[in-house]
């Protein structure tokens, strides 16, 4: 799985969750950059990401994430450990 592929899927997931086709994710993108990104949408994002990449995170991993780049890093790390 490449970083480009993960970003492609993540862009699709974010656009779908927030119903906003203009979203373009970057490593630094965080909840302050997307108006509707609140705690409920955070749950929806994590669930959609877990389903898309067929992996499960634990609470601590999710709590530590500061931005999209760290989420992508986590996905790639989990994928390489499988």
């Amino acid at each position, binding site marked *: 799985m490449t970083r480009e592929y993960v970003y492609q899927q993540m862009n699709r997931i974010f656009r779908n969750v927030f119903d906003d086709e203009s979203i373009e994710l970057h490593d630094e993108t965080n909840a302050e950059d997307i108006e509707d990104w609140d705690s*409920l949408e955070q749950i929806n994002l*994590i*669930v959609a990401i877990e389903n898309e990449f067929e992996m499960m995170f634990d609470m601590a991993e999710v709590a530590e994430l500061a931005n999209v780049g760290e989420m992508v890093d986590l996905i790639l790390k989990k994928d390489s450990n499988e």
Partner: protein
Amino acid sequence: MNNYRFEDLYEGLSVSFEETVTEEKMDAFRQISGDVNPLHMQKEFAQSQGYKDKVVYGMLTSSLLSRLVGVHLPGKYCLLQGMELKYLNPVYAGDTLTVKGTVYELHPSVKMAVIKALITNQDGVKVVRGKINVGFLRYEDE
């Protein structure tokens, strides 16, 4: 009332209950919602549209899903977060509905469960199906 905690749930766990829809409940829902569409109020209009009688409000039927998650699965600690539903067939006053919920997905990272919901009538015909996202309130002993 059940009081399942997230940790108690497992995929495939299911609960169900029955409820009969009545004219009184139709009236109450009309008052609550303000939906005076003739499909739900006039037998002749409903029949002219191909239905055998006034059609029960879809959201009256799906209001039973509030009870499903709030009382039965998971029950007391439920925090309803969202649902996606399909209304498959009409419901009529007098129908006895069976409401069934089954744990479909568990996401420990965000303590969220997806419940598959299915409502059938007394003839076994599916009238509503969907998925419900539920989170969990704080447990009292935490």
